[in-house]
């Protein structure tokens, strides 16, 4: 019997033996009520039709799409904090999408740029569908209320961007991501989306090959509960926090969904494909936008020379991101940089542009310089180093058309997913398109599935919740020191950066494998005594660190096995791209005993001929 839960029924059936959260009427409601009732099943577990983990652009789009597709379904968006703290807000450049066909642009051309940009590791049919949807999404976002910068004719304005053969990076001044995130949030709020705030994902339950739902931890109360759902959408963002502070991404983007999917039997596809952005703040890793170079800034080494002349003599500082990133790391390795260790750096100098121009066109960068490094770019050059910026890899998508994973009932969207649209290197402007497009597709897909599916009994969920409850008790009691956890995290970041950063070799990766094992052993022995269940962030950080360790191991394995250089993955010992052997996706899976295994999956190669990637 197919159960269609209305929102009211969902709330009535939602129950746990936990503390009650505040129940407020209207669209923002807690999923848990104080009373204990059962609905259609004999299990006393809370449930909803569609559970969406993650409230960035992708998660919010998925929620609205699902509710529109079938208004009878109960849809809940789970957020680790509250719904506007996502990485989506941090994107700046723009959102790609063809809306102007008058100058020879087309969805196919956008797809070609994407495929080439991804060094041909992109699934081509999916990329064409993606680019068509991305183009259509621009007008849709405008209609939803997103404020875009405008052309003289009042149309959405676009700017040229890296790797794009036509101008199609649509933007809203210098904070397109923030604008996209809030447009999606406003839409979600107006559409009546329900949010479950301060809840984190622990695991996904899969039984008899089907997705049962998720085990969530209520950070406010500490209660760990299995939540049954007909469809689950993982939209938890990327995993570049494996480099800990040498990344531009938020503290909360720790790849929880990717790790949970891996544990649930879904492959982690192309994990070694991490994009490094050339200019990140030294003490922190946050981004200095490309605009600094776009406006005419120079990159200088400790000899005062504009070293890009040796790496990209015609484009200089405006070469593609991976080329500039490699250039900077080479200067550091060859002793022509400043500082040492993780805090080595080169200089980004904009002084010659003059105070007036800096204040007018680069105010954000000046602010970041003062904030993070106590440097005023008007008087001094900024110190920068490459930083991990985006995860091309992610949860294996089985079908682009509904963003489903190979596990029925489990879907994924946004940076957490990997079709792959971005292949081995993402084009600037494509990640916002990704969030907005794949979010909607996943929402539609999840709704279609949930409309026909039954709730499972939740047996695996129940067991997982039990295990997590035991683990919580174990980890938060006994003797130990939180400093050990932070030490492991710092070392993880440093090890990953040094050995699996911009330049990789077999010996470094093998060494990293060993280090990760050692860190894992230390992690397994961790105890962080903190008896208070209320808002126990020590346990949250513990869970996140566990996920980062797992994801590092997967990435290390794939980086080790992919014996070629492609896109962002640079093997010094295999400097060329090897299409004969490696024109395929790496697929890391976890076997029944918890060990990671390497596999491969074909890339969809159809319309575009694989060729050398030259700009």
């Amino acid at each position, binding site marked *: 019997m197919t159960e269609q839960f209305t929102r009211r029924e969902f709330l009535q059936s939602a129950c746990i033996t936990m503390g009650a959260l*505040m129940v*407020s*009427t*209207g*669209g*923002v409601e807690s999923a848990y009520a104080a009373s204990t009732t059962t609905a259609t099943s004999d299990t006393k577990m809370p449930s909803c039709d569609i559970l969406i983990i993650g409230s960035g652009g992708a998660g919010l789009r998925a929620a609205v799409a699902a509710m529109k597709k079938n208004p009878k379904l109960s849809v809940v968006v789970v957020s680790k*904090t*509250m*719904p*506007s*703290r*996502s*990485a989506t*807000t*941090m994107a700046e450049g723009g959102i790609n999408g063809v*809306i102007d066909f008058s100058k020879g642009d087309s969805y196919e051309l956008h797809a070609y740029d994407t495929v080439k940009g991804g060094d041909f590791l992109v699934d081509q049919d999916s990329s064409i569908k993606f680019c068509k949807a991305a183009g259509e999404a621009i*007008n*849709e976002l*405008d*209609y*939803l*209320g997103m*404020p875009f*910068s*405008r052309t003289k*004719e*009042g149309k*959405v304005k676009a700017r040229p961007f890296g790797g794009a053969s036509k101008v199609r990076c649509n933007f*809203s*001044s210098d*904070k397109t991501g*923030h*604008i996209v995130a*809030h447009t999606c*949030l*406003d*839409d979600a*709020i*107006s559409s*009546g989306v329900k*949010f479950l*705030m*301060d809840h984190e994902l622990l695991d996904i339950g899969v039984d008899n090959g089907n997705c049962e739902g998720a085990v969530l931890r209520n950070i406010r109360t500490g209660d760990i509960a299995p939540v049954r759902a007909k469809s689950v959408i993982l939209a938890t963002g990327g995993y570049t926090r494996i480099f800990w502070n040498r990344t531009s991404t*938020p*503290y909360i983007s720790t790849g929880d969904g990717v790790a949970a999917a891996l544990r649930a039997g879904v492959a982690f596809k192309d994990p070694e494909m991490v994009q490094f952005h050339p200019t990140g703040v030294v003490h*922190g890793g*946050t981004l200095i936008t490309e605009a600094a170079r776009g406006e005419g800034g120079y990159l200088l080494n400790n000899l005062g020379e504009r070293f890009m002349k040796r790496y990209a003599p015609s484009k200089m500082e405006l070469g593609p991101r991976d080329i500039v990133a490699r250039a900077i790391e080479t200067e550091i390795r060859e002793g022509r940089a400043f500082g040492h260790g993780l805090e080595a750096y080169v200089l980004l100098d904009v002084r010659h542009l003059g105070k007036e121009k800096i204040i007018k066109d680069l105010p954000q960068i000046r602010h970041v310089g*003062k*904030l993070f490094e106590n440097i005023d770019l008007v008087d001094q050059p900024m110190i920068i180093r490459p930083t991990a910026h985006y995860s091309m890899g992610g949860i294996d998508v089985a079908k682009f058309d509904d963003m489903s994973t190979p596990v029925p009932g489990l879907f994924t969207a946004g940076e957490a997913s990997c079709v792959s649209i971005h292949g081995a290197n993402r084009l600037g402007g494509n990640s916002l398109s990704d969030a907005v497009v794949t979010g909607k597709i996943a929402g539609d897909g999840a709704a279609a599935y949930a409309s026909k599916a039954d709730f499972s009994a939740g047996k695996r969920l129940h067991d997982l919740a039990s295990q997590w409850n035991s683990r919580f008790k174990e980890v938060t009691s006994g003797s130990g020191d*939180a*400093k050990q*956890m932070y030490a492991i995290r710092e070392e993880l970041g440093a090890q990953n950066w040094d050995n699996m950063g911009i330049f990789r070799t077999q010996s470094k990766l093998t060494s990293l494998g060993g280090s990760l094992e050692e860190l894992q052993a230390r992690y397994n022995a961790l105890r*962080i005594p903190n008896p*208070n*269940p*209320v*808002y*126990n*962030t*020590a346990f949250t950080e513990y869970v996140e660190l566990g996920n980062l360790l797992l994801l590092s191991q997967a990435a290390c394995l794939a980086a080790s096995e992919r014996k070629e250089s492609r896109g962002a993955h640079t093997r010094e010992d295999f400097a060329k791209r090897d299409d004969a052997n490696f024109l395929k996706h790496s697929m890391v899976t976890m076997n029944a005993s918890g060990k990671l295994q390497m596999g491969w999956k074909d890339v969809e190669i159809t319309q575009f001929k694989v060729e050398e990637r030259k700009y």
Partner: protein
Amino acid sequence: MKFIIDRFDGKKSYEQTYTVEKKDIEALTLLGVLLLIKQKQDVTLNFTASCRCAICGACGVRVNGHAYIACDSKMTELFEEYGEADAFRISPLANFKVISDLVVDWEPAMENLRKIKPALVAKAEFSEKEGCRQNQEEFDRIIKQWDCILCGCCASECNKLTADHADYMEPFVFTHAWRAANDSRSKDPMIHAKPAVTNGLWNCVHCQECANRCPKGISSADDIAGLRAMVLKKGLNSGVGPAHAKSFYTDLVEDSGRLNEIRLALRTEGVSTALRAGTAITLMRAGKMNPLEVFGGHTIEGHKDLVKMIEAAKAATKE
């Protein structure tokens, strides 16, 4: 130096003092200090942080009773602001329910956002397929209010919310209503403006805390004023708030050019001025209120010219 933090463990509130060496924190932001304390001294200290570069709004806290976003507040600036103090008091944002330490509950605020229907409802001439048309000037008009990162700093010191939140909303909610209502693509500004009225638009006390605390320089106070002007133009004139504001305008433009307090009371509350009889009598006893003022005060010199100027301004905006 000392950081005295107002903590809450889910059951009881208490303060806890952490000592740090000034030289260890001078170059940091306030968020950096909180992270330092959590990682080196006390892992149980709770606060929310995400982007650490002032775009996600997660790290709003109070320093000495005033709201800031921690990641955007350099310790050197705080030292300067508070006169090289050797102690800072750190508290959670005010006017939010505290969940733990410096972590607050955002559910009620999200519920308030829902009341004003934050998403645009576009004009019929636009469509999902074709998008909308808007010119750069119209974009520039509203884009500042889109800088809002939902950090909550404006709500923390809002004097009206502190006095009573039941008949009011966080200042940023009014800003969101303003930006949707003033979007040139909007089918009907009243979709957002009307619920602003019914949820306390006229209760703002003008304390300017919101405008003063906003790390993005948005003035919700100005947006509230803008919404008030908008709804008055649309004829939503009834109630004490509108009558009060209009009385000042009437005095300025149509009557003497200065406030007439007797008429203010009468116009604002009409018959129910009787309820204020106590105050009126007090004032008259104190010799401060001249009841003859009800017949109109002395018109200012040059009032005719003032009127001409204002008419000219009105005519210019009609074009």
